[in-house]
C-alpha cells in the first residue's frame, strides 16, 4: 500500500474510492473486529461508531498505514491525512513554524494560508505550542490535515475539545473537502456536522 505517491490536486484526478474487504484487527490477544467490509466513494463520509475500545482508533490507524491489519485488504482512497489523539506539536516551536514544517513535507505550502484561515489559527502563528489550549491544538492539527491536500481524511474524534464556533468551522471545511471529491472517515461519538454520513458500527 503506497500511501502518498504524490500530492495530487483534488480537482485534477478524482481519487479511487476507498475499498475495504474482510478486514480484521488484533491487538495483543484480543480480536477487535473481523470480516469488516465497506466502501467510501469520492465525496462520501463514513462515521465510525461504537463504545470505547471497540477498535475505532485502530481502524483509523490501519487505514492510515500505521498499523498492520491481521487480515483483509485495503485499496484506493488516495493520499491520507491523519489526525489522531496526539497532535504532534512541539512545545518550544511556534505554531506557524510547525504548520510550515509539515506543509513543506507535504509540498502543500500554497494550501497552508487557506487552511490556517479555515480553522481560524492564522492569528496564533507566533504563539509557542506549549501555550496553546487543547482546542487550539486540535484546530492546528485539523489545519495540518487541510493543508496536506490529502484525498482521504482520517479523523479521530475531531470535535473533541472544540467550541461551537470551531466545530462549525470544521463542518464547513469537511463539506468543502467532500464537494471537491475528498473522502472522510471519522471516529465519532454523536454528531460532528457531516451531512448524510454512512455509518459503521463497531463492537
Amino acid at each position, binding site marked *: 500500500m*503506497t*500511501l*502518498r*505517491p504524490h500530492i495530487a490536486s483534488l480537482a485534477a484526478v478524482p481519487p479511487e474510492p476507498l475499498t475495504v474487504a474482510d478486514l480484521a484487527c488484533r491487538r495483543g490477544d484480543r480480536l477487535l473486529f473481523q470480516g469488516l467490509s465497506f466502501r467510501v466513494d469520492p465525496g462520501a463520509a463514513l462515521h465510525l461508531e461504537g463504545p470505547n475500545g471497540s477498535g475505532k482508533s485502530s481502524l483509523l*490507524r490501519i487505514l*492510515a*498505514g*500505521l*498499523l*498492520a491489519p491481521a487480515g483483509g485488504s485495503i485499496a484506493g482512497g488516495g493520499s*491520507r*491525512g*491523519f489526525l*489522531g*489523539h*496526539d*497532535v*504532534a*506539536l*512541539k512545545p*518550544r*516551536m511556534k505554531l506557524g*513554524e510547525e504548520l510550515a*514544517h*509539515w506543509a*513543506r*513535507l*507535504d509540498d502543500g505550502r500554497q494550501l497552508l494560508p487557506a487552511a490556517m484561515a479555515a480553522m481560524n489559527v492564522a492569528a496564533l502563528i507566533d504563539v509557542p505550542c506549549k501555550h496553546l489550549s487543547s482546542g487550539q491544538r486540535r484546530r492546528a492539527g485539523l489545519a*495540518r490535515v487541510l493543508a*496536506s491536500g490529502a484525498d482521504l481524511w*482520517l479523523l479521530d474524534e475531531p470535535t473533541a475539545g472544540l467550541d461551537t464556533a470551531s466545530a462549525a468551522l470544521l463542518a464547513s471545511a469537511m463539506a468543502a473537502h467532500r464537494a471537491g471529491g475528498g473522502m472522510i472517515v471519522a471516529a465519532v461519538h454523536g454528531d460532528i456536522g457531516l451531512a448524510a454520513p454512512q455509518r459503521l458500527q463497531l463492537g
Partner: protein
Amino acid sequence: MFLTLVRRDLTLIARSPALWMPVMFFVLVAALFPFAVGPDARLLGRIAPGVVWVAALLAALLPVETLVAPDLEDGTLDQLASRGIAMELVAAARIVAHWLGFALPLLAALPVAAVLVGMDSATGWRLALALLLGTPALAALAVVAAALTAGLRGGGALAGLIILPLALPILIFGVAAATPGALKLLAAASLVSVAIAPFAAAAAMRQD
C-alpha cells in the same frame, strides 16, 4: 525531504534547554580525572585518550531519552508514517542531527579537555581525527538505543546498557588511533555502525 527532516531535528535540538549539556559534561569529566588519579603528568598523559573517549561516549548518551521517545509520544512518528515517509529516512536524519548537535561542540571543546588532562598537541590532533571518525558511530548507536527503549520506563538507563557493549570496537580503535592501522579499523567500525543503524532504529520505530 531528508534535508527538511535534518533541519527540523537541528532546530529542535537548538531550542532544547539541554543543548549545552553533552559538551559541558564532556569538559567536566575531563576536568574530574586529574583530581581522581592525582597530578602525575606521565600517568595522565598515558590515559588521556581513553578518558576523552569515555567522556565522549557518555556525552553521546546524555540526550538519549529525548532522541526518539518524544516523537513517539506526541504522534510525530504517526504523522511522518501516515505520509508514507520511510522510518529509515527519519532515523538517518536523526543520526545526522544528533551527530551535528553533540559531536561538533565536543570537537570544539576538545582543546579545553586536552589541556585539562595534560595531552600534548600531537596526541591531541590524532585524537581529534579519531573523534571525527568515531563519533558518527556513537550518534548512530545512541539513536538505535533511543528507538529501542522509547516508551519504556527507565529507558535511558536501559539505552546505556544497550550501547556500551556495542560501542566497544569504536572505543578500542579510537584510543589506539596513534597507529594508522587502528585509524582505518576505527573508520571501518564506524562506517558499519552508521550504515546499519538507520535500519535497526527504523525497525524499532515501526512498532504498532
